[in-house]
């Protein structure tokens, strides 16, 4: 059966901390022991961003988990509309109604040897590429990968401008210095994340390419460009997708992404998934991002449309 492991709860979680790490960005720390203990990188929570008795805005909003510390989860988001603005005005001690952990999480390859610090000449195996507010779930993934393999992944951040670059401090705490590209050149390379990624993948060579994985999260055009690059260079690639989610739990079929009608033989079939990776959904060529994703192998996605 096509099922994610259904360890989900609805919880009322007190806010432990609220900070503003960059202009128009808010980070919340929520006491959520069940979610903290069961969540995996790539999963998200669905938060009711209004008083319970109100009717508007009606629906919950999805937020990726950026980090887990003890019994708390961290989420980091950009303030875009009324819900994110309301969440940014909460005070420590107030509680939020949360569903989680949701989604399938990244499928993390585990059949490789541990790369040790004594062999620096071996090329890195993981490339994490985050665009704008797509960075936070990759921070969780980076920490997990370091724990598993002892080696820091390559981390690339893309953003419109310097103000949209987030996560650098979090990464530096993990010993990671990200490569950065901005559309306007106000920080790092004046260009796109693929300008940074392509040469790195290229110089790996074909033998290592198949053992590498690119994990990407960000706007659709960025994911599409990365997916096409990885297909060209034959590097396995997972993308974490985003779509409006009325329910977040798999009952409404609203958050679908168009996939290839018959899933392609993925180059990663040799890899085991630690995260309960689902087989292609029963729902024909449209898969629910909330339960059959958000992490999906890029070569199963139909990248036809531009946005």
């Amino acid at each position: 059966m096509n099922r994610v492991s259904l360890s989900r709860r609805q919880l009322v979680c007190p806010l432990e901390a609220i900070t503003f790490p960059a202009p128009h960005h808010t980070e919340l720390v929520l006491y959520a022991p069940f979610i903290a203990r069961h969540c995996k990188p790539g999963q998200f929570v669905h938060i009711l961003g209004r008083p319970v008795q109100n009717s508007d805005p009606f629906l919950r909003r999805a937020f990726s988990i950026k980090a887990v510390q003890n019994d708390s989860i961290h989420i980091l988001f950009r303030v875009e509309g009324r819900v994110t603005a309301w969440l940014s005005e909460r005070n420590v001690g107030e509680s939020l109604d949360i569903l989680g952990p949701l989604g399938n999480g990244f499928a993390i390859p585990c059949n490789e040897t541990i790369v040790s610090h004594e062999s620096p000449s071996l090329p890195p195996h993981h490339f994490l590429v985050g665009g704008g507010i797509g960075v936070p779930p990759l921070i969780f993934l980076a920490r997990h990968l370091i724990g598993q393999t002892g080696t820091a992944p390559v981390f690339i951040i893309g953003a419109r401008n310097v103000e949209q670059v987030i996560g650098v401090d979090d990464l530096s705490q993990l010993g990671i210095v990200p490569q950065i590209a901005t559309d306007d050149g106000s920080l790092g390379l004046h260009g796109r994340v693929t300008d940074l990624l392509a040469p790195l993948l290229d110089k790996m060579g074909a033998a290592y390419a198949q053992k590498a994985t690119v994990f990407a999260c960000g706007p659709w055009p960025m994911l599409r460009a990365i997916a096409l690059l990885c297909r060209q260079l034959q590097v396995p690639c997972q993308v974490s997708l985003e779509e409006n989610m009325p329910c977040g739990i798999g009952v409404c079929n609203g958050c679908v992404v168009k996939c290839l009608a018959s899933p392609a033989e993925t180059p990663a079939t040799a890899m085991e998934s630690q995260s309960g990776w689902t087989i292609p959904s029963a729902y024909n060529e449209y898969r629910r991002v909330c339960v059959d994703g958000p992490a999906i192998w890029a070569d199963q996605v139909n990248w036809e449309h531009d946005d």
Partner: protein
Amino acid sequence: MIERPHFSNGNSEPELSVTLGSLTLKSPVLTASGTFGYGEEIADLVDLSQLGAIIGKTLTRTPRAGNPPPRTWETPAGMLNAIGLQNVGLERFLQEKMPFLRECGAPFIANIAGETVEDFAYLCRTLNQIEGVAGIELNVSCPNVAHGLDFATDPYLTEDVVAHARKATELPLWAKLSPNVSDITTIARAAEVGGADGLSVCNTFVGMAVDIHRRRARLSNVTGGLSGPAIRPLALRAVYQCVRTVSIPVIGIGGITTAQDALEFLIAGASAVQVGTATFAQPNAAIHITQGIRDYLTEHNLKNLQTIIGSLQ
């Protein structure tokens, strides 16, 4: 904590069961089609045995992929959806979903749709033989698929499809009406004449939204069905009008989020209610509503629902 008085029947809890024709349910709160999957998807978050009934996602004879995304857009106090009846088709449903539904602790009502009356009849004939199906709701009112499915905008087509379904099954048969008509009472009457045992009033209202920066509709289907609290007064009016037109039970649907909302519909004459969009914001909405109805009866010293259903003065 409300003190619970003892009633003459010896129980301290008010009786919530409702009888809709030949169907008796333990509570008047059902989950609406398209908002609860087939139960199993949400079973870890909701105790299904506390529900009056589960109405499944619309089934069609053959699998449907549904509409391209974007399929949903939030609007003031509600949302638009144009899912497009994505479903695995009847055969896979029977193999993969029915086993769970038989054991889930709540009666299961199958919601079905077809492009022709023959499709409806086929689905009814097949479901008629399936153990664990307590009733059938006819989706003659989905606004999100290209022509052929919107029987409920025409009284003659409505009567015809209901009559064909009626001949094909002895199960309780409800017609789910569209509010996108000038006079829902003509459709209600037609469904009753066709042989419906009950009416589900009502499906979503056709609406749309526009992205002003890209100058495109927010939904790939352009239009979609509006649901949620925004439509409640409209749905309530439709229920009220239908109740006064037919003598079969009317099940009220439309933006019911709290017990107070449900009670408005019951007092206006609905024999039961369905909870849909509210489940997205609150997975246990139907159960909270059920408890709230129970609390209301206790507070007003009422033994059961019969005194309040249709008690509008």
